[in-house]
């Protein structure tokens, strides 16, 4: 029996501001899950803290709405315990690229089969509008009234450098492409990053839907080969970059490789015994364990 789209939605109505980019991410994600026909009970969505991190509660999958910045390690532990579950981490740019940036890098180099969706609005929304790690130079926010003087972090370039095996950017104003990217990301075996330009209609008056619409383009349409890591890095560096050029914002699948095994395929315990959550508890031959202590 096919799973209907409605079956992925929970009874909770999203409390995002009307027009928030995160609605599109939620829609794209449910479309992807439905397209892949993943039963909701075999999906775990993990998040941290921020407007976008409320997302698991709006789904009828299993969810874990944790503390700020720690979605990826929780998701990693969950995936290691039960590699048969589809594990998705979701959150914002502050959560993933700010307070959780350390985990972001290490999760990517580990290449666990996890999909990480970052709703990137270049601002801290839930705390009412401070600069985020992806705020662009010069952006005036509550915490930077004279303008941001740091360079924005480039998540796509970082991801390629850190060893993510699937790197993509979506835009909330283009749900069709976003749903397609999300589907491919979930299907990808290994760590997949989907950085979504998801406008904050309340606190970010610069990077609006219109701003993006004038700049985004889908890389597939220009003949980009996501298997080519150098071409991918060049695409990733188009925006944001040190020059502050902001005329074109690439979206779509930037980098993709299936040449590398996942962490769980390499883990000596999982390789030997399968999913830890399915193992019997208890010890059969304690004598064997104690031998080394005589």
């Amino acid at each position, binding site marked *: 029996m096919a799973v209907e789209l409605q079956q992925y939605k929970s009874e909770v109505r999203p409390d995002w501001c009307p027009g928030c980019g995160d609605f599109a991410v939620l829609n794209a994600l449910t479309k992807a899950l439905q397209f892949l026909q993943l039963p909701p009970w075999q999906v775990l969505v993990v998040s941290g803290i921020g407007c976008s991190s409320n997302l698991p509660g709006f789904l009828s999958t*299993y969810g*874990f709405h*944790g503390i700020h*910045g720690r979605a990826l390690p929780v998701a990693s532990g969950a995936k290691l315990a039960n590699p048969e579950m589809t594990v998705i981490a979701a959150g914002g740019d502050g959560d993933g690229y700010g307070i959780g940036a350390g985990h972001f890098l290490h999760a990517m180099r580990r290449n666990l089969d996890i999909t990480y969706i970052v709703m990137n609005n270049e601002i801290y929304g839930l705390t009412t509008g401070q600069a985020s790690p992806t705020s662009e130079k010069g952006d005036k926010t509550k915490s930077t009234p004279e303008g941001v003087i740091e360079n924005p972090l480039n998540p796509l370039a970082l991801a390629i450098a850190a060893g993510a095996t699937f790197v993509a950017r979506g835009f909330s104003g283009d749900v069709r492409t976003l749903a397609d990217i999300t589907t491919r990301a979930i299907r990808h075996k290994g760590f997949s990053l989907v950085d979504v330009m998801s406008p904050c209609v309340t606190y970010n008056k610069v990077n609006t839907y219109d701003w993006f619409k004038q700049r985004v383009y889908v890389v597939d349409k220009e003949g980009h080969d996501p298997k080519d890591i150098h071409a991918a890095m060049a695409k990733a560096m188009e925006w944001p970059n040190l020059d502050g050029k902001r005329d074109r914002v690439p979206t779509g699948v930037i980098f993709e490789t299936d040449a590398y095994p996942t962490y769980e395929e390499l883990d000596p315990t999982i390789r030997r015994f399968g999913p830890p959550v399915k193992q019997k508890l208890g*010890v059969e031959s304690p004598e064997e364990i104690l031998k080394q202590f005589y």
Partner: protein
Amino acid sequence: MREISFRVGGAAGDGVASTAESFARLCVRGGLYVHTYSSYQSVIRGGHVWAQVRAGEEPVLSQGEDPSLLIALNQETADIHVPLVTAGGAIVYDDALSKLDGLTPRAGVRLVKLPMNATARELGEPMMKNVVALGAALALLDVPFAPLEASIRDVFGHKKPEIVEMNLRAAHTGYDAIGTNGGSLGLGIPFGKAPGRLMMTGNEAMALGAVAAGCKFYAAYPMTPASAILHWMAANGPKHGIVVKQAEDELAVINMTIGAAHMGVRAMCGTSGGGFALMVEALGQAGMTETPIVCVLVQRSGPSTGLPTKTEQGDLNLALGAGQGDWPRAILAPRNAQECFTATVRAFNLAEVYQTPVILMSDLYLGEGNRTLEASQLDFNVPILRGFLVEENGDPKGYKRYAFTESGISPRVLPGTKGYQYTAATDEHMENGILISDVLAGVPAWIEERRRMMEKRMRKLEGMRHEMSPPERWGPADADLTIVSWGTTTMTVREALGRLAAMGHTVNALEFFDLFPVKVEETQEILEGVRKTLMVEGNYTGQFAHLLRAETGYKPDHMLTKYDGEPFEPREIVARALQVIEHGG
């Protein structure tokens, strides 16, 4: 009790620890009980490192005090330790490594000059000076050569036969030299048939407890003195189905542990104070999402980086206060290696039954020290209590992950179970997990709901309280003085009690090992029966004394605190007790 305190000292990189461990293992195989203590520094080469193996015919409770047999591998060792060697003992030295000129050994101490260095160099491996020394030590103790030979074959058997031969020759050189240096010390240490006892550290005993309890996930970031748990798990875990993960920091460590536990495996992480401090927020997360995890805290000297290679009992306040807000936790502090095993098993059961974090506290002294155990003390056939788990194929209609119950324990479903989907949340939530933090907080009906949810979680603390043990009394029921201690210090206090009894004093002890939640009434009852108390603990402010006073209203009469990085010696406790007995304070 006939006993020996073997001490070997040198620089980091001299093989001091492995020499002590070999000696200790030989003693255990020869039927003795051991207790080892390593004094080392935060340096890879150089510095001053020494290790003591106290071995006796009865269970050894502490590292003891001065050595009876010293092996000096460098000048600094000689300078510091030569004057400490007790009468009837011996000092084994090599004047190519250390000169004894100007040092003042006690009367009745034999000086054994041995060309350890030259012998090792002749054989082609300078590190083998330890093996020469080990041979000499065994001859001084009247131990036959065969066990040492067996041990060398054990250790080096997998290497080239020449290496085994070289080591045997080094050992023989040291062993035979004693014959022409006055022979054995004649201490009469009974060294005989091996009764099949085990030697392990507290850290290893905890790892074994985790294996017995069915732990399937262990995560850690390297940190002295907890790293040995990670090392044992990494080497052995995969054989027992345990996924072992070294993560990028302790934040990742505990969050991975929580993720794994959330999915339904028994999960544990381990660290020392600094790493535990980083874990604080996530501990509260486990409390709020009601995720069962076991967190091991092997204390070292703080504050901050402190003395990374030294011991302390200074993290009790940290463990008690970890996390914002109130959430239920249990804190267990095993007293000895056997309890490291049994407390770990209990920790997993408490964590799963009450769906909340359990903190296991030990310290460098017990975590890294070797102790002797009977195999029968480690019963792997343990109860595994998984608590209120909803089985597959039930009726998911109306399922509430955080349902209000009398015990506060709600039905837990493991993700993957069809039809029961819910979201665990660190925000305050309703019985079904839906947030009340965002749009409902402060709305009258939900003010009440929040209050009830807090009370539901905290009722679990009362459940756990019933499962805690009150302090155990050691020694006579009626005593002039009662020494109160907790965790690893209890064993040294026991030894002090024996000495005080031998001096004719009636002193007993109260040993706390289930630290929190406190069994208030039982503890108060016990405290009503004591005359005068001396609290002994390894920190500056008397952290346990504060807990005891806060929970029971009881203030210990006298204090003995220690915060110099070294473990208590029995004689310090005896001296303080005598001060109280004889001078009233």
